[in-house]
Each structure stands twice: as structure tokens, then as C-alpha cells.
């Protein structure tokens, strides 16, 4: 799983479903209208309960402990608004940012810029207002949302983003600060998914530690944490990311500042917990059966290979192995170094296949959408389970899924950049190559002319004037050498543009072949191609399936 930028996909919900969703949103509107911040009771500074694991959470504590011991596997995300910022932390991210050494590193990084003493640095790094909350929420897979005021003049001095996020997760801000301002304080926050208010399973507040010039202070400014069910970040039934917003109130204004959580963050947070969800597959006695298992090449990565073997066993009827296959594959993808892209793709598709077989289409869709973003031309073989093929079509983004014949590219390369121009979305590069080649040739021609002129002076030199014949010749010959080098450079650019265009298209064609008919049984992959057909009495295109 790659918590990377994602593009939005068009919603493909049937009209009826959209109407229902709209009606639900309208009906819910009065219930979620903003409340004045002062009307709500302040959140506690100590956890008022301990989140006990339910039947669906059994084993989570052991799982996250094992993951945390193996690597810093969680990614955290910072979302900044006009006055506030959100730090979104999965349980693994909470564990990754927990070590005091990271908070110490952040403050040490800022020590010189903010003129802080050594003892003060140690004291600041020891502040951990959320230890009790984290402990109370430890046994449940919950997403922590840290709501902080923005730094007034942020200092980029934290010795890395991980250290910076570790400091932020403890409510420690670095930079020069003015006096306490109520409109920048955080009084209350709530999360809404698709417009509906979603309750936090645990929430609390803690003072912000402002590490400014010459020391740290707590001036009464608060920050909050909301612990939320990860399902709030689940994709919609159509496979699109949910619209998640956080409303933040200060102590005096009745209107909140609304911070939309970017779609990429929503999806990435959800996906971070997929490995855990995979471990639950089949726990409730549900038996899945892979009617049409994917067939992908066996990976070389040992963990992925074990997951692949489990998948194959599941495909042969050992249903209990299927959950292990998805869990093993997705957990492996949490750790660095990542396996080759092809193996990642195969593992994600196998995991998606398993989720789909267990009826967890949201999770499957999330994985398929991620794969389709990296491989927009991927097509499944007709033998692959229909649900997966439908997901692939839903998640497909516009892309060029055809290849231009290489001889045509080479022929077009007779004009510098012409081959590059043939392939779409590279017109800028093509123009640059054309201009560079033509420019270099023009420069070479002008330099040759100059050289010829200087040589003519040399030939006509009659001993009367300065410069003398020797310097005249040197000038002419230097200009000719420069002109020749410029010609070679022009030819080099031309050759590069031609070679690059052919190579690029060859790679593209190879990538297309690689993702065509994915999941077909070995030796059974079918490739369709359209070829020119000339026969007596007719001419046109023929569809050939090999």
C-alpha cells in the first residue's frame, strides 16, 4: 500500500443512491448545525475511560506490538488550515512517534535557534501529556486526531519531519510566540464524515507547550485529541474516499474553522489499517471461497512468497489460509525496503481478491484503486472473479493504453523531436528537443560563417596590419572547432531525441504487455491486437487474439 497522492475518481453511484445520500445529508443538517463552543463542556485532561477490546479487536494489542517492534511502520499526516493544524495518527504512527528520543531530537534541533538551555531541552522532551490517553486506547485500533493551533511564525528547525511530528503529537510548538490569543486557542473539535457528525470513542485536552525564544511556556492554550474508529476513513460503497472534515472552535467564536482532510490522507489512513483488518478475515466463522483465483507470478520476496503460497492453498480450497495470505502480504508492504513494484502489485491484487471473497469490497476496492492508479492500463483476464474486474473498471483513470509502432516513431524522428511529439503528453519535451537541435545547428552554422570570415582575413593578410597572420589563423580555427563541436552537440541532441522516443515507447509497450490480462492461468494469457488486413476485395483492420 502506498500512502501517496491520489487523484479523485468520478463517483459512479446510481442516481437513486445519490438521491438517498443527499436526502440523508439534508435530514441530518439540523442535527449537526454548529454549536457555540462555550455551550459544550471542556474535554477531560485525563482519560475518562479505558477502551476495552471488543470481539473484533481481540489480538490487536499483540499485533501492533509486534509491528512496532519490527519497524516504524506508521505514517502520520499533517493538515494545516488558517488557524489550526491537524495531525492524523494511525495506531502504528502513534507507536512510531512515541520514543522520547524523537521529541528530544526536535527540541535539540531548535535549541540553537531559540536559545534554549540543555536542562530546558530535557524538561521539554520529557513532557508527554497524552501518555495516559494512548495507554487507554492502546488495545483498540483507533485513529488519533491531534488538533493544534498553528505556530505564529513556525521555525523549521526540528531535525526532520519525524521529530517535528513527534513534538507536535505531544502538543509542543517551536518558534517565537506572542501573548495568548483566545481566537487561536482550541476549545472543541468534531469530525464529520460526509456531513454527518461522528463521535469520538475517546477525547481529551492538554496544554500546548510553546517553545519560544529563551524557553518554553504554557500560556493556557489548549490542544485536543480525538480518538476515532478507523471505519470513519473507509471508502464509500462506490469506492471513492469519504469527505472527512474537522470542525474546530475557539473559546469565543460561534462559528468553527472547517479543515477538510484531503482525500489522499483519508485513503492512506484507512489503508494503514488494512493489514490488521486482513488478520480478522474468517475469524467470525465466515467461510470464503475463491471461485476464480488470480494467478500471478511467484514473488521472490520471502514474506510475499509465503503469502502467495497461502493464497494458492486458499485457492485450492483451504479457506483458512486466505486470511493469512492477505494479512501476510499487506503486513510485508508496511516495512521497508519495499519489494519490486511487480511483486507489490501482485500482492495487493491477491489481497484485494481475498477481501472481495470475504465480502469486504470496500477494502478490496481501496487496494484495486491503488493498483489502478499506478497501472491505469491494467486489465484483468476474463477468468478473474467478476467483482475484481468491476472494481478495476470503476477505478480506471484516463490513460494512454495503446502503443505507437516503433518504426513510425523512428521515422518521425527524422524531424528532431518528432518521435517524441508522436507520443501524447510529451509535446513540451518534443518542442524543447526540436528547439535545442535546431538552435544548436543554427549556432553551428553562424560559427562556421564567422570562422570562414576570419579565415578570409587570414588568407588576405599582407603583412601590414595587426593582428598578424598567426593570431588570425588561431581565431578562425578556434571558431571552426567550436562550430564542429556545436554540430556534434546538435547531432547528439537529435540522436538522443530519436533514441529516447523509441526507447520510451518500447518501455510503454512493454509495460502495457505486462498489465494486459493480469490474473490469467499460466500460459493462458491472451493478448488481443488490431492489425491491418489487406485481402482480395477488402481492406481494413482485423482483431487478432493470440
Amino acid at each position, binding site marked *: 500500500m502506498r500512502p501517496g497522492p491520489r487523484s479523485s475518481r468520478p463517483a459512479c453511484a446510481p442516481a437513486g443512491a445519490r438521491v438517498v445520500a443527499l436526502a440523508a445529508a439534508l435530514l441530518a443538517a439540523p442535527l449537526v448545525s454548529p454549536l457555540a463552543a462555550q455551550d459544550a463542556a471542556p474535554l477531560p485532561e485525563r482519560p475518562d475511560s479505558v477502551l476495552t477490546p471488543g470481539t473484533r479487536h481481540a489480538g490487536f494489542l499483540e499485533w501492533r506490538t509486534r509491528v512496532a517492534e519490527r519497524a516504524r511502520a506508521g505514517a502520520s499526516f499533517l493538515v494545516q488550515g488558517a488557524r489550526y493544524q491537524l495531525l492524523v495518527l494511525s495506531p502504528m504512527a502513534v507507536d512510531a512517534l512515541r520514543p522520547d528520543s524523537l521529541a528530544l531530537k526536535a527540541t535539540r534541533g531548535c535549541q540553537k535557534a531559540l536559545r534554549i538551555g540543555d536542562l530546558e531541552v530535557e524538561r521539554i522532551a520529557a513532557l508527554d501529556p497524552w501518555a495516559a490517553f494512548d495507554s487507554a486506547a492502546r488495545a483498540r485500533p483507533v485513529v488519533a486526531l491531534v488538533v493544534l493551533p498553528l505556530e505564529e511564525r513556525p521555525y523549521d528547525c526540528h531535525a526532520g519531519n519525524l521529530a517535528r511530528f513527534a513534538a507536535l503529537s505531544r502538543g509542543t510548538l517551536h518558534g517565537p510566540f506572542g501573548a495568548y490569543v483566545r481566537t487561536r486557542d482550541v476549545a472543541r473539535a468534531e469530525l464529520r464524515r460526509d456531513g454527518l457528525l461522528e463521535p469520538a470513542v475517546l477525547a481529551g485536552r492538554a496544554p500546548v507547550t510553546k517553545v519560544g525564544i529563551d524557553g518554553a511556556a504554557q500560556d493556557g492554550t489548549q490542544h485536543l485529541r480525538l480518538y476515532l474508529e478507523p471505519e470513519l476513513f473507509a471508502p464509500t460503497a462506490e469506492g471513492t474516499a469519504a469527505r472527512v472534515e474537522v470542525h474546530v472552535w475557539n473559546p469565543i467564536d460561534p462559528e468553527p474553522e472547517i479543515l477538510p482532510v484531503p482525500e489522499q490522507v483519508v485513503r492512506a489512513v484507512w489503508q494503514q489499517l488494512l493489514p490488521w483488518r486482513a488478520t480478522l478475515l474468517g475469524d467470525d466463522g465466515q467461510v470464503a471461497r475463491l471461485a476464480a483465483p488470480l494467478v500471478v507470478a511467484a514473488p521472490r520476496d520471502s514474506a510475499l512468497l509465503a503469502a502467495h503460497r497461502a493464497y494458492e492453498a486458499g485457492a485450492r480450497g483451504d479457506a483458512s489460509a486466505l486470511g493469512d495470505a492477505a494479512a501476510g502480504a499487506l503486513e510485508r508492504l508496511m516495512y521497508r525496503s519495499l519489494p519490486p513494484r511487480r511483486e507489490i502489485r501482485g500482492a495487493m491484487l491477491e489481497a484485494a481478491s481475498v477481501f472481495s471473497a470475504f465480502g469486504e469490497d470496500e477494502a478490496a476496492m481501496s487496494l484495486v484503486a491503488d493498483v489502478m492508479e499506478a497501472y491505469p492500463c491494467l486489465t484483468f483476464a476474463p477468468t478473474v472473479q467478476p467483482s475484481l474486474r468491476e472494481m478495476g473498471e470503476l477505478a480506471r483513470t484516463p490513460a494512454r493504453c495503446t502503443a505507437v509502432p516503433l518504426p513510425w516513431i*523512428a521515422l518521425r524522428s527524422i524531424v528532431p523531436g518528432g518521435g517524441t511529439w508522436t507520443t501524447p503528453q510529451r509535446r513540451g519535451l518534443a518542442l524543447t528537443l526540436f528547439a535545442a537541435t535546431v538552435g544548436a545547428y543554427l549556432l553551428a552554422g553562424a560559427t562556421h560563417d564567422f570562422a570562414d570570415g576570419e579565415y578570409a582575413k587570414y588568407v588576405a593578410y599582407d603583412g601590414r596590419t595587426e593582428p598578424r597572420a*598567426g593570431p588570425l589563423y588561431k581565431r578562425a580555427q578556434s571558431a571552426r572547432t567550436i562550430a564542429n563541436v556545436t554540430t556534434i552537440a546538435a547531432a547528439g541532441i537529435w540522436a538522443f531525441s530519436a533514441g529516447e522516443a*523509441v526507447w520510451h515507447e518500447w518501455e510503454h509497450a512493454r509495460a502495457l504487455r505486462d498489465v494486459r490480462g493480469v490474473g490469467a492461468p499460466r500460459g493462458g494469457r491472451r493478448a488481443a491486437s488490431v492489425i491491418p488486413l489487406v485481402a482480395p476485395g477488402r481492406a481494413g483492420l482485423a482483431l487478432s487474439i493470440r
Partner: protein
Amino acid sequence: MRRLLRSLGLAAITVVAGACDLREPFPRTNPFDPDAEVEITLLAPDSTHAVGERITVTVQSSMPLPPGPLAITWRSSNPGLLTSLGNGDYLVLNATTTYLPVTVVADFAGTLYSRVVYVGRRVTP
């Protein structure tokens, strides 16, 4: 792969054809150039036989000479015997019955070309 190589070959041939505008170094033909690869010969009579005789030394070059009059300085190794009148003309000022070698020099702005002329007086019976 064969298709790729064929296409790359086609592209390479095209480019090589386009890159043929590489030019040879200029020839060094000017006799005023100390590094010129030009053969200069001074044409003059081998000897003179009387006082008051005038000889003319001319320049012959393996390459075309610059057009127009050239700024050549003409000198003699023994101006007392054979003096330069300029433009390659020399006058015998003195001579003995013993023929003496005199070098006539054409100075091409520091590049020297020379030839030996024997200056003497023919004894009349």
C-alpha cells in the same frame, strides 16, 4: 527486441546523415604565418657580374599569395656589395673578381626566406 534495434538503427542512420557538416581544419597558406605549411622560393639570378648591375628577386609560392602588394622587407647580408632597392630589386654596389656569396632575404613580417647570390666582377680580357 529486434524491432527496437531496427528502429534505433534507422534513427541512428538519420542522425548520422544529419551530423555530416563537420569541416576540416583550415590550411595554413599565408606566407606571413610562421607556422604556414607553404613552400616559398625566391627566384633570382645565381650571380652578378658587374658593378651597377640590377637584379630582381621574385617570390614563388606553392600556394596562392595574398592579393595585392605585400609588405615584404627585402634585405641583404652584405649591403656593401648588394643593396636592396625595395620591391625585390637589388643593385650591385661593389664587386671583386672573386665571387662572394651574398644572401638576399625576404622578410615576411618576421618569417624569413632567403637565397644566395654570388656577387663578383667578370674580368674582361
